[in-house]
């Protein structure tokens, strides 16, 4: 089957009556799962799996991927309106989403987030389609040496995030790296920093850490300061005003199309690399958006570009992750591992044969991502109004509800009571960090990339010897890292000099 033929057949199947209803139900289900903090894409997919046994492969794929595609959109809404990341990949949205809400522009941020998610996912899906012919060479590009250097490059974005206070950001990032070391070390079989607790043997789970650092910390703040999430400045908007804001947000996302494109490209690239996941992709995209923005100073205070950048990256990741899954049957993320298992259940072969023999199935996936995200975008818009009204509720009523939902989400990941404690601990830590102006984003990046940096460095040395860094690709990437770092240090130094000049 040729690619064009497959494209047409895939599209026709995706919108046929046998498939589309499942796609629709899946997308709405994913959106709602995303709204609930702690429940993420692979949870939605795992819940769908038992239904697959009685489905045709096409319907099953649409149902499953639809549920997965919209999760980030739902999570973005929660991130913006409740300062609680609905899923891990929305953590970067917290940097500028909630400040916009406090400025009375919550609905606009939500509209922009939903749209950039859709655009990012579409970009990811289209890229996947374009890459199909040369997919295998591209995925094989990334081995331990390349991933090590790339992860390091991503780590240097910390410098950008912490431009205002580099020292504190570095402290936070390095503390994050230390947190990543907790648990059984794969290489030496030694337990590190577990204090003899069996629960810490597998290391800290990502979701409780994110929920604690960002969500619980925010709830604490609301509790301490009183008032409501919406903030003093913004009286509750009428439904019509909310609607108008949403469409302004949609328009803003289209207006920043160049930014969306660049951040989506970052997302796709990071998705291609197995094991990096979508949370760092969003942060890297955020850092890039800030770096290239004309209004750098307002980042973190409610700049819509920050929302657009991170949300377009976190859904574009899936296109990249899907690429390595399809090309070799090597899953790029935990969700993709579930997808792979599901494809097995549905009797579909993955790997090169899928691209040559079942290219229509690949296109069903591509169209599912695009259509699913479109449904998520429209469906999400209907959720904005009711949800944003809830942000007007005074803290005394909202805090208990939020705390219940957050802790349930933290528990649900592994059914672990211990994780509830972790969430609480990181909640206190996150609150203190926020009050004392330490970057929580820097800590999270350090935490997430710590694994990738350490493990891949070890493997790179084992496989290619200590001089792996001198191989052409790692060397090029290392040069870029150094240049990037140097530019930033230079920018910080001049920035400091300037502000000092002003003070004089």
């Amino acid at each position, binding site marked *: 089957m040729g690619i064009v033929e497959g494209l047409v057949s895939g599209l026709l199947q995706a919108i046929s009556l046998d498939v589309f209803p499942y796609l629709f139900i899946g997308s709405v289900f994913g959106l709602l799962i995303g709204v609930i903090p702690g429940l993420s894409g692979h949870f939605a997919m795992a819940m769908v799996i038992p239904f697959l046994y009685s489905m045709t492969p096409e319907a099953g794929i649409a149902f499953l991927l639809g549920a997965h595609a919209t999760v980030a959109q739902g999570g973005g809404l929660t991130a913006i309106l409740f300062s609680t990341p609905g899923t891990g990949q929305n953590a970067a949205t917290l940097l500028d989403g909630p400040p916009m809400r406090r400025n009375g522009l919550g609905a606009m941020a939500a509209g922009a987030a939903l749209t950039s998610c859709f655009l990012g996912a579409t970009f990811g899906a289209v890229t996947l389609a374009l890459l199909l012919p040369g997919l295998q060479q591209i995925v094989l590009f990334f081995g331990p040496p390349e991933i090590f250097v790339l992860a390091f490059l991503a780590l240097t974005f910390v410098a950008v995030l912490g431009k205002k206070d580099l020292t504190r950001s570095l402290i936070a990032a390095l503390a994050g790296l230390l947190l990543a070391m907790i648990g059984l070390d794969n290489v030496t079989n030694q337990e590190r920093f577990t204090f003899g607790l*069996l629960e810490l043997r597998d290391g800290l789970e990502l979701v409780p850490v994110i929920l604690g650092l960002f969500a619980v910390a925010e709830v604490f703040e609301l509790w301490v300061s009183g008032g409501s999430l919406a903030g003093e400045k913004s009286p509750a908007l009428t439904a019509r005003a909310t609607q108008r804001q949403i469409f302004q947000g949609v328009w803003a996302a289209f207006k920043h199309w160049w930014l969306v494109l660049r951040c989506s490209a970052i997302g796709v690239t990071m998705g291609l690399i197995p094991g990096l996941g979508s949370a760092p992709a969003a942060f890297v995209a955020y850092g890039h958006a800030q770096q290239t923005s004309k209004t750098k100073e307002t980042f973190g205070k409610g700049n819509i570009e920050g929302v657009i950048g991170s949300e377009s990256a976190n859904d574009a990741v899936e296109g990249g992750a899907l690429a*390595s899954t399809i090309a070799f049957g090597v899953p790029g993320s935990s969700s993709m591992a579930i997808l792979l*298992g599901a494809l097995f*259940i549905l009797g579909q072969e993955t790997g090169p044969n899928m691209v040559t023999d079942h290219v229509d199935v690949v296109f069903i996936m591509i169209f599912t991502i695009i259509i699913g995200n479109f449904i998520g975008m429209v469906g999400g818009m209907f959720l904005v109004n009711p949800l944003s009204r809830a942000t007007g509720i005074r803290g005394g009523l909202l805090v208990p509800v939020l705390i219940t939902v957050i802790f349930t989400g933290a528990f649900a990941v592994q059914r672990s009571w211990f994780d509830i404690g972790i969430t609480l601990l990181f909640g206190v830590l996150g609150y203190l960090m926020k009050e004392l102006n330490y970057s929580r984003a820097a800590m999270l990046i350090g935490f997430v990339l710590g694994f990738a940096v350490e493990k891949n460095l070890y493997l790179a040395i084992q496989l290619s010897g200590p001089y792996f860094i001198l191989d052409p690709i790692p060397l090029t990437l290392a040069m870029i890292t150094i240049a990037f770092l140097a530019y930033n240090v230079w920018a910080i130094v001049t920035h400091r000099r300037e502000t000092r000049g002003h003070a004089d």
Partner: protein
Amino acid sequence: MTTRILRHRKPFSVIGWLIAIAALAACQQPPPDGAPEKTGAAAYYDGRNIRWIIPYSPGGGYDEYARLISPYLEKHTGARVDVYNLPGAGGMRGANELYNAPKSGLTIGVINGSALVMNELAGMRGADYKIAEFEYIGRVVADRRVLVVSLDSGYTSIEAIMNADERIKIGATGLGGSTYVDAVIVNEAFDMNLDIIHGFDSSSVVRQAMLRGNIVGTWGSWGSAVDAVVEGRHKVVLQSGRERLAELPDVPTAFELVDRMANPDRTQAILSAWESLHEVGRPVAAPPGVPLERLEFLRAAFDGAMHEPELLAKAKSSGRPLNFASAEEMRRVITESTSMPDDIRALFVRAIKGEL
């Protein structure tokens, strides 16, 4: 104001209601009309909930098996089977939880048999269960381990690997993990000088390294290797087990190579111990102390479920092999696996601890 708040919390409450309704429906299912009155254990299980502990996350092989089998177990027990994922500590968290579960017979679990036996032998911290004390219900599948190599590597037979001039790189996940233990044990049994590179995050990353040509091959279960083999990218060069697998008629088992060794007795002893670990496979067990009547009922129900033609067909089409073994056989297998000669046991303990 109050009504407004209630109205706008809809997305949460709708889900809550759905869960509540589902739970109610589950509890209040009336017995089907005309069915014969159930007695004894059958009456006890009828309409109750069985919690089936899976010691790994949703989406993995263990989870897939459980979700594949649970409808048939429901049919044969009359109970509702809840698949309950308790990931952590390499499967030990779920096993500990199962070991200490209430003795009502309403909690069962599948366990990673060979890993649990080895962890107990090595006295690993966190192994708070006694593998011999579990009440076994039956086995889902036995492990068939295979050594796969990528076809691009140029090594396409075990002879070529054994006689290679360079040190061949074999990938593995964590130090002391099953892919690592297989590699070092076989290395030791045949005095091979393979370079075992561990520290890969998961078996899929190992496979990617094979594709890139960073390593030649890896150990793994036949179930996880079958895809790439069918597609013609990987080739199995050696398999565990005493008999060749029907799907792999041309691949020698490790036992077939014993005669070539200078000291065949030692090789045979190592391989026998290794094989007895694989035979434990993935058994379903209940905690010690469950009333015998309920155990017998569960065993009969599991036996029935595992022999449902529909399940067998589904398992076959989705590439998930089933090797049922009865509770009795499981007890024999466990005894065999835990009673290795001292020198062999010491060898395995060193392998698990990563000292080999």
